[in-house]
């Protein structure tokens, strides 16, 4: 339902500002242009997106996902000691993180949800535990090694080198994830007092 409200708000605001600013002609033309641009963008980014989804599938099959999952286990044991005590939860958690890193969104969500459901057994009266909050915060902060969709958009717009933003994405992601984890741990400590 959220999208219904957002779309309705965007269109109504456009009409309102169009009337107030006397830009109704432009708004009307823009509506048709926008729909056209949606299709054009999808078609022109299709090549990059499909190619890299394919490459990611090859990496996954080579065992990169499992290798990354092993790499993250020690960190998860420190961040979520309680959840990591259960072998299956730890496996789902580390697989969730490595799928996120590879941008395999359709694989990451079911794994994360599986971990969340196991961790929710410790929750009382539907109240999230500290570690469950942390898991969700980790998943709301994107950590992606190769942002393929964005590279697709940049390529479609004629970027000289669509992937040149990758180091910047990594830096911003690391800072954002660190902030989220720090905030979650801080709030958890404050809540216990």
């Amino acid at each position: 339902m959220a999208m219904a409200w957002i779309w309705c708000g965007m269109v109504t605001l456009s009409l309102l500002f169009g009337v107030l600013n006397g830009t109704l002609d432009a708004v009307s033309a823009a509506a048709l242009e926008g729909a056209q641009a949606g299709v054009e963008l999808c078609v022109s980014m299709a090549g990059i997106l499909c190619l890299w989804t394919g490459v990611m599938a090859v990496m996954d099959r080579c065992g990169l996902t499992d290798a990354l999952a092993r790499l993250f286990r020690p960190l998860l044991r420190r961040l979520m000691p309680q959840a990591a005590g259960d072998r299956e939860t730890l496996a789902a958690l580390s697989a969730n993180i490595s799928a996120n890193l590879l941008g395999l969104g359709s694989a990451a969500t079911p794994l994360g949800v599986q971990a969340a459901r196991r961790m929710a057994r410790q929750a009382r009266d539907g109240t999230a535990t500290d570690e469950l909050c942390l898991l969700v915060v980790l998943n709301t902060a994107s950590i992606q090694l190769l942002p393929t969709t964005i590279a697709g958009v940049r390529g479609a717009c004629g970027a000289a080198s669509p992937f040149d933003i990758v180091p910047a994405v990594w830096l911003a992601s690391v800072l954002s994830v660190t902030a989220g984890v720090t905030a979650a741990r801080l709030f958890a400590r404050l809540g216990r007092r």
Partner: protein
Amino acid sequence: MDISAILVPGLLAVTSVVALGRRVNVYDVLTQGAAEGLGVLVRILPNLVGLLTAVYMLRASGAMDFLARLLAPVLALLGIPPETAPLLFIRPVSGGGALAVGSELIRTHGPDSYIGRVAAVMLGSTETTFYTIAVYFGSAGIHRTRHTVPAALIADLVGFAASAFAVRLLFGG
């Protein structure tokens, strides 16, 4: 030589050699994966048509400039370019909406411009926060989410400021 120039051919060559070494049928897996990419496109196309229509209308009506002017002083403090203001609002709520707003910014300002790069990095380093929270807690049967929303929004805000910072640092403003 530009380091990112080796990234694409390097990744393609290394993964296929490693895969072949592990007796993985590289070509079959690659094409199956590409077919999955097509599925992603089919899912986002209707969203992009709906949302780019609304975004173009907002831009043409002057509402976007109004929002940018309104927020410019606050965003300047965080080093975030005011042109990206609409992206900040839609990013936590709608993935398709963010892609629509972001790609419109990248197209109008150019993919290799400061604003175009900041918009791309913002899209790549943040997630659809509220959707993720709803999916995880919904399926785990949790209705008291405690500090999850504030912590996740802090991560988003830091991600936005860090995107602008990272682009300035690595490409120069």
